[in-house]
């Protein structure tokens, strides 16, 4: 970084004025007997983005904190951060190359969509059953393994989308059966510590599935063929608008997208649309949402919460399996493949707000963008990709400091 002193000075300014703003504006609203929690957050954002220039009028006027007040200052914080970075490191490829930046954003969005899909499954399980499944990564792994074994070993030539459907069905069934066999004791008081029991039993399932797959198929990396192989095509002739090769699409000579990933993202978006339809347009989906909102009230109306538990766990596992099923064409696959994506999903659902389905999906997209920005823009190339898992953690820490319920979470 060319002007690191300037950059860190701006960061220091933001931290100091953010802290001052949080305390000062909270005090102002408290003195007027207004909502202090939102006031503190708005104070932090206005302080970090504008320093004393925004804080002084806010302190004296104490306006009603509308949605615009709650959101707009954060864009100011982001803008100031980006401006400081751009001025401090003008030669950084993120600053000097628009095409690179666009490519990174496109990649971040694509990966974020898939992260979101996987995290959505975890959030669904948490919102209905109230447990965190530590075997989520293994369902992701199994989804990929099923597609690989079906398309490359057992039934070569089969349409890979049929294999994806099979992976979804299998992960749903395994999840639902597991819920019936092992999670029912937590509903009826048969175990003394239901939360700890759920952690241990899902951990046990994770190890079992991982070593079962390793025992059956070995531990060597495998990979499915790309679901779609594009022909070499350019439009217009110089390919300035669109150019395709077997595994890549180039848009405007600027954005490079790998087709296996794009395909995975498209399937994820379709699955998300299907899930929304299911949750909002079918009786089963409405029943699931009812149980998530109020278990007892739902039971009174004739919904069996136990069936909903099984459905939620099965669906959650299926979403993880689907994410794996569409990514096995993009990555090499191992029995341990699910570990890192599962950890990422835990971070995402906390970032988005525990139990919040939109939060999980938006958190996933945010995580994709954050990782893409970290890998692409951190000036030191020996650290940019090494610290990939840490970028999300940094953002999560900042969010939790300001909003312990996560971005879209609500108080219990």
């Amino acid at each position, binding site marked *: 970084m060319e002007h690191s002193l300037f950059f860190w000075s701006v960061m220091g300014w933001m931290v100091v004025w953010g802290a001052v703003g949080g305390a000062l504006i909270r005090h102002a609203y408290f003195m007027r007997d207004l909502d202090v929690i939102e006031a503190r957050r708005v104070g932090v954002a206005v302080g970090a983005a504008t320093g004393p220039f925004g804080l002084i009028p806010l302190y004296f006027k104490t306006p009603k904190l509308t949605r615009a007040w709650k959101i707009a200052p954060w864009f100011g914080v982001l803008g100031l951060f980006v401006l400081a970075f751009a001025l401090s490191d003008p030669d950084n490829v993120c600053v000097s190359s628009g095409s*690179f930046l666009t490519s990174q954003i496109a990649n971040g969005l694509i990966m974020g969509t898939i992260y979101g899909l996987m995290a959505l499954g975890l959030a669904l399980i948490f919102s209905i059953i109230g447990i965190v499944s530590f075997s989520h990564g293994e369902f992701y792994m199994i989804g990929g393994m099923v597609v690989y074994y079906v398309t490359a070993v057992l039934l070569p030539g089969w349409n890979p989308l049929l294999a994806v459907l099979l992976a979804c069905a299998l992960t749903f069934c395994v999840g639902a059966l597991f819920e019936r066999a092992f999670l029912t004791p937590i509903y009826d008081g048969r175990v003394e510590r239901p939360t700890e029991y759920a952690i241990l039993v899902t951990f046990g399932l994770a190890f079992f599935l991982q070593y079962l797959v390793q025992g059956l198929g070995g531990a060597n*990396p495998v990979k499915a063929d790309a679901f779609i192989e594009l022909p070499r095509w350019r439009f217009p002739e110089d390919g300035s608008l669109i150019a395709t090769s077997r595994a*890549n699409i180039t848009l405007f000579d600027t954005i490079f997208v790998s087709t296996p990933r794009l395909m995975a993202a498209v399937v994820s978006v379709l699955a998300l649309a299907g899930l929304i339809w299911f949750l909002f347009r079918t009786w089963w989906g409405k029943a699931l949402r009812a149980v998530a909102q109020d278990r007892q009230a739902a039971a009174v109306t004739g919904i069996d919460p136990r069936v909903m538990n099984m459905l939620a766990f099965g669906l959650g596992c299926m979403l993880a399996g689907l994410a794996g099923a569409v990514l096995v064409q993009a990555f090499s696959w191992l029995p341990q493949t699910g570990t890192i994506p599962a950890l990422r999903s835990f971070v995402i659902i906390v970032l988005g707000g525990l139990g919040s389905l939109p939060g999980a999906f938006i958190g996933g997209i945010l995580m994709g963008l954050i990782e*893409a920005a970290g890998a692409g823009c951190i000036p030191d190339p020996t650290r940019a990709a090494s610290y990939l898992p840490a970028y999300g953690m940094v953002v999560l820490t900042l969010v939790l400091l300001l909003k312990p319920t996560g971005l879209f979470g609500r108080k219990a």
Partner: protein
Amino acid sequence: MKTTLLSSAAALVLTTALVTPALAQQCPIRIGGLAPLSAPGSVTGGEAMRDAMRIATDEINANGGVLGCQVELVVVDTEGLPERGRAVMERLITQDNVVAVGGGYHSSVGLAAKDVAEAAGIPVVFAETWNDRITADMDRFIFRLAPLSSEVAAIYANFAATVPGVQNVVIVAENTDYGLPASDMTRQGLEAAGITSTIYTVDIGTQDFSGIIQRIRADRPDMIIQVMTGEAAYNFTQQAAEAGIGPGDLPMTCDQNALESAAYWQNVPDGNLCFMNAVGLPTALFTDRTRAFVEAYTAATGKDAAESYAMEAYDSIMILAQAINEAGSTDGEAIVAALEAISYDGVLGTISFPINAGNTPEQAGVDPKWWHQFPDPAITVVQYQAVGQSSTDAPVVFPPAYVTGEPIWPHQ
């Protein structure tokens, strides 16, 4: 009567003398084998080493064993993790009571495990751990067959200097005790040849390289050198190929596990023209011993060739067996003395450790890294020149002493 007693006593003395070696230690004699058999370790490498060590053990036992005892091989899974390597070395020594240890793939594991063996006085012959410090620490009980990282780095740098038009090289390295020093030494070698380079480091288990690949692409390198193990190397190569900077687009050196032809082509279908470094005699220079091993290995594993690390793992067990026989004991000090004096005709060639307690690095005027180090493992660069080609058929393109074919430069 007197004659009978004398005869009996003589028979007893004779019998005692004959069976003493076998009675002096417990049978069977146990030898430990280190191999990564789970991710994030290089599973392809680990399984190959395990198979080779088993072949060595079977061969030893078929020829009468060691000191009249059968040999039992105890293979442990290091997972490529240093903490795990330390733990399994402790287990081998304290629970399995091994008298010596062979194998070993990841440098970080070797560095962690060697201190445990050294403290316990158990000789170790490392097969595939390259970090210079493994021998440079001049531990009494530690030996190595694999090449030094600095020597391999020199080969890479010298090879890069022969590639037409190369001015700017990107080195992608794993952030481990293997990748970090090896990439730095390669950078120094390139610098000495007037070639600029940028090092990108990544986590050993990285699956998604999209962010870093876009960044490398923006650097417009003339060549990419990988210093990575495990499936991460497969992922990087394939994803780079999809982004248009793969082995078919510009000169790229792949990790050694690319020598596993079947796994490589399954995971990296677009990996043609990749260069790989191979340790051990090129096919054209195979000795009878090498050919016999390759025949046994391919018959046992169903592969079409034997990889460098398989040969090294085989030799690490065989050389220990010979040393125990020559020492006439399983005592650690006696085995070390035998190893220091050994001349073993293995599949890698005639192996000895000329820099030892009787000829220290100081006396020999060489760097301490040559302590207990096999000085002559042949290091070559081979290139896949057809999709699906076996690594045995891939021509050696560097160094000139071993060349069997002309390189194909993808950028020309």
